[in-house]
């Protein structure tokens, strides 16, 4: 049991808070519950919901960011996802896209498959990102800090990395209703120009 567990917000609360601060920025959301929860809280055409290819959310967002340097590109990621695609932290750190904001909901478990523990309780992903070359790196535990730091990152040049420690609560959210090809086309149209 983590010492701070009782005080942490849920991922869904963190998502709702972040979405209030976002408008038309492209957001790439990792597979599993994060995509379902975002879809339930606010379904925007600028959201790319993933259902598979675990570990690749940041890579997809990076591709968008490199081609659209004038748009801030956000990715909503999880601790299991970051661990699986950890090399992408290095690629982002090396390429240093200014318009890249990497948000990680860290609940220390693989929630979608039954809460098996990840290893993010002993491997601080924010420190890994900092060492890899992300310019702004913050670790937050509550809503007020989350709002403050995310607003700050929206104003700054990145790449930025915001690690949000969240509890294991899962919002009652069904599967994303859009078929994958529809998600692709809708997202492409929404981020045009």
């Amino acid at each position, binding site marked *: 049991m983590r010492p701070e567990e009782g005080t942490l917000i849920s991922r869904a609360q963190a998502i709702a808070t972040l979405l209030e601060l976002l408008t038309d920025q492209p957001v790439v959301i990792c597979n599993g519950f994060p995509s379902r929860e975002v879809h339930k809280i606010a379904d925007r055409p600028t959201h790319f919901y993933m259902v598979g*290819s675990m570990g*690749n959310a940041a890579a997809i967002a990076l*591709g968008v960011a490199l081609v659209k340097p004038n748009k801030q590109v956000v990715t909503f990621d999880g601790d299991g996802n970051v661990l699986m695609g950890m090399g992408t932290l290095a690629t982002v750190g090396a390429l240093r896209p200014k318009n890249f904001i990497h948000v990680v909901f860290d609940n220390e478990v693989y929630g979608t498959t039954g809460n098996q523990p990840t290893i993010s309780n002993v491997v601080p992903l924010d420190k890994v990102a900092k060492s890899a070359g992300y310019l702004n790196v913050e670790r937050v535990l509550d809503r007020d800090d989350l709002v403050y730091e995310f607003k700050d990152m929206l104003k700054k040049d990145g790449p930025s990395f915001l690690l949000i420690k969240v509890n294991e609560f899962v919002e009652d959210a069904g599967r994303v209703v859009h078929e994958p*090809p529809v998600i*692709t086309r809708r997202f492409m149209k929404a*981020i045009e120009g």
Partner: protein
Amino acid sequence: MIDSDVFVQSMQGLGVNFFTGVPDSILGGIIAELMIRGVYVPAVREDEAIGIAAGAYMAGRVPAVLMQNSGLGTCLNTLTSLNLIYRQPCLLMVSWRGQDRSDAPEHRVMGEAMLQLLDTVRIPHRILTEKTAIEDVRWVMDTSTKMQIPVVLILAKGVVRGLHP
């Protein structure tokens, strides 16, 4: 043998305008040429390269990913659970290591299985030859665009020149 700069020029001429990947010796000349032109985004794993290319595609580019065929194993899940189901085209330029048994032992199994593997997951492919090069690249791009999925151009040793003399 096709010169790397001629090959890259023709790919760009056909509309490919985003390049990423993980190196292989067979692809060395092409990657060197792409780097000279300042258009190559180096990835650290093949699944990451496919992800970056997917993002570039959705942002409006025509992407190509270069990799050794060993990387097909690494990125297979990304191809099947991202590109194939989300209907995202991509030109994959895959070197054919292990085409014969004189190559290093780590390439034997994938070298033999590659064509069947691609058929099994229903990814169209074509082997590049010097005589039909332009037609091969055009077919791969047309097929990828028409079907909205990745298509593989297979590069055997000695078809496109390695590093510049």
